C-alpha cells in the first residue's frame, strides 16, 4: 500500500518537474517562466522527497526529507522574488501580451521623487 503511494508520489513529482521545464521552454517572458519554474519545481520536489521518505521508512531520512521540503518552500519564493525584481530593473522585457504594468509606474514615480530635491537645491 505504502509502496503504491510512494510510486505515485515519485511519478507525480517528476511529472511536475517535467511540466516546469516545458513551461520554461513554452512561456513567452521571464516572469511567466518564473511562474512555472517556481511553483511546479517546489511541488515536484515535495512529491519526490515524500516518496523517498515513504520508501526508506527511517526516522533520520524522514526528518532530512521534511527539512529539505521546508527549506525549499521557504527559499523558492525568495529566489523568484529576487530574480524577477533584478530582471525588471535590468530592463523590463515584458512580453507583447502584457496588459497591465503598475510596477513600471511605481519605479518612475520613485525616480522622479529622488531627482526633485536636487533640482530645488540648484535653484
Amino acid at each position, binding site marked *: 500500500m505504502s509502496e503504491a503511494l510512494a510510486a505515485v508520489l515519485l511519478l507525480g513529482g517528476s511529472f511536475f518537474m517535467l511540466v516546469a521545464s516545458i513551461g520554461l*521552454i513554452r512561456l513567452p517572458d521571464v516572469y511567466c517562466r518564473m511562474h512555472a519554474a517556481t511553483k511546479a*519545481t517546489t511541488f*515536484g520536489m515535495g512529491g*519526490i522527497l515524500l516518496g523517498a521518505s515513504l520508501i526508506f521508512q527511517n526516522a533520520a531520512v524522514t526528518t532530512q526529507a521534511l527539512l529539505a521540503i521546508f527549506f525549499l518552500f521557504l527559499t523558492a519564493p525568495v529566489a523568484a522574488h*529576487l530574480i524577477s525584481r*533584478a530582471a525588471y530593473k535590468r530592463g523590463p522585457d515584458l512580453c507583447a501580451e502584457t496588459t497591465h504594468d503598475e510596477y513600471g509606474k511605481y519605479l518612475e514615480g520613485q525616480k522622479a521623487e529622488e531627482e526633485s530635491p536636487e533640482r530645488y537645491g540648484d535653484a
Partner: protein
Amino acid sequence: MIEIAVQISLVMMGASVLLAFIRLIKGPTTSDRVVAADTLATNVLGVIALFAIQTHNKLFIIAVLALAILSFVGTTVYAKFLERGKIIE
C-alpha cells in the same frame, strides 16, 4: 514496482534537465539563463533523491538537503549580479 516507477521518473527528469538546458543555452536575456540555472539545480536535486532510492543509499538524502541550501545561495548571488552588475563591492 518501485524500481519501475524510479526508472520512469528518471527518464522524465532527464527530459526535464534537457529542456532546462536548452533554455540555459538559448535564453535571450541573462535573467532567462538564471531562471534556467535555478530550475536545473532543483532538477539535479530530484535526480539525486531518485538515485538514493535506486541505490538504497540513504546518505544521498543529506546531499539533497545540503545542495538545496547551496543552490539558494547561488541563486541569490546571481540575482545580486543581475541587479548591480558585480558580485563583490
